[in-house]
């Protein structure tokens, strides 16, 4: 409480139908410590019915304004607007009618993968064309759900220029719908480690007044053999690094419109009692910081409701961008090694194009190759 103003920050978890996650979180639910849950509503695409108890859980949190939705598969920057994307929007509309989401979000980037539910998010050229597509798609999201909509910053970048420009580019997209930013602090940690940049410098590149939600999580290190260096990846399969908690403490006082702080981890990283206990320890640490820093947060200035939504009759498309995305996906998913990826890219339509592949760092291209292959068969 602050001068009669109610609680403004809520700590929660990414809560999906994963037995390990739910087992890890159950003691937190039982203790009444979970203040908000974030549900990835589009990951149950092959199952029509939720268990009654999970449906009830979503309903109860929704009725209290403590349910937020986080999409995975919309692929905001897809060059063409696909039938799958329209079905995703139709599903979003139905789900938003069923549950009281406080807001809905998606990821920055386009999804690799030949199939709608396979692949992983990667960057696109930060061009006028891709900006127009992203604005069109996020407007359709806003129209479909009728709630505030937002985007999460992406951990992966091909080069430092893309890293520096991502924040302002996201802002240009969000301006279209008065949208909000999910600031994923582990994604920023990855970027700080991979591009040798200070967190305090990097966050200034982002529209901090648009941050309504923070994600924290853990990840892993991998060796990029092309440059013999360690690369930090956003794999969500380990505990939260100390640095990410320090980022959380540092950034909350800079975020007037922050409302939710969410801890994320994959169920595969919670397969033992010890790991589940560590997850709960991470939650307690996060919640303690959030509660402590609450008083330092400036008063909110934006409700993120979309005003004057403009929706063109036909979705914007860019056939060249779509073809290049398909070509990049094919090369990443069907090459035998990094050398082959690089050679094929140099001979592709992405060469000497707005993708600027000539400036991509070898270690990051190798990482893109690893990410695409990890997720090309889905989960």
């Amino acid at each position: 409480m602050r001068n009669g103003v109610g609680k403004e920050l809520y700590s929660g978890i990414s809560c999906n139908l994963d037995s390990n996650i739910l087992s890890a979180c159950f003691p937190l639910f039982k203790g009444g410590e979970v203040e908000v849950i974030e549900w990835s509503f589009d990951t149950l695409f092959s199952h029509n019915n939720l268990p009654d108890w999970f449906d009830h859980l979503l309903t109860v949190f929704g009725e209290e304004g403590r349910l937020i939705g986080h999409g995975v598969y919309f692929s905001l920057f897809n060059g063409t607007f696909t039938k799958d994307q329209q079905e995703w929007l139709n599903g979003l509309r139905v789900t938003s009618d069923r549950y009281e989401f406080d807001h809905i979000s998606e990821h920055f980037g386009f999804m690799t993968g030949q199939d709608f539910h396979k692949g992983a998010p990667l960057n696109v050229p930060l061009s006028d064309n891709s900006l127009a597509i992203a604005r069109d798609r996020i407007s359709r999201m806003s129209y479909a759900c009728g709630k505030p909509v937002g985007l999460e910053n992406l951990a992966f970048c091909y080069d430092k220029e893309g890293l520096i420009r991502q924040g302002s580019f996201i802002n240009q997209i969000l301006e279209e719908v008065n949208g909000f930013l999910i600031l994923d602090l582990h994604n920023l940690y990855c970027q700080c480690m991979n591009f040798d940049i200070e967190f305090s410098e990097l966050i200034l590149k982002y529209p901090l007044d648009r941050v309504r939600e923070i994600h924290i999580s853990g990840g892993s290190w991998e060796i990029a053999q092309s440059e013999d260096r360690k690369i930090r990846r956003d794999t969500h399969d380990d505990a939260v690094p100390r640095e990410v908690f320090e980022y959380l403490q540092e950034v909350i006082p800079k975020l007037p419109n922050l409302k939710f702080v969410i801890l994320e981890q994959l169920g595969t990283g919670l397969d033992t009692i010890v790991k589940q206990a560590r997850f709960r320890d991470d939650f307690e640490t996060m919640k303690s910081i959030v509660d402590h820093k609450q008083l330092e947060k400036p008063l909110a200035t934006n409700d993120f409701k979309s005003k004057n939504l403009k929706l063109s009759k036909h979705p914007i498309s860019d056939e060249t961008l779509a073809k290049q995305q398909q070509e990049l996906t094919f090369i990443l998913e069907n090459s035998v090694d990094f050398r082959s990826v690089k050679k094929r890219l140099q001979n592709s339509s992405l060469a000497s194009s707005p993708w600027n592949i000539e400036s991509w760092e070898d270690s990051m291209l190798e990482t893109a190759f690893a990410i695409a292959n990890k997720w090309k068969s889905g989960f």
Partner: protein
Amino acid sequence: MKLSKSILSAMAVGIALGTTSCSLGDVEEIHYEHCALDCEEEHTELRATEGGGDTYPYNCPACGMG
């Protein structure tokens, strides 16, 4: 946020069984044979098992695709 006993009990059963057939009416399943009929004690500690994360047919990764 405080959750009702009935939701917590249904969650416990649902997670432990790892099936989609749970409902809010399954509360009695968490009691033991030696419990009294009106037992109000919560036997809801979950069994976290090694590698037991795939009991749901749709365990999902959500984010973390990095």
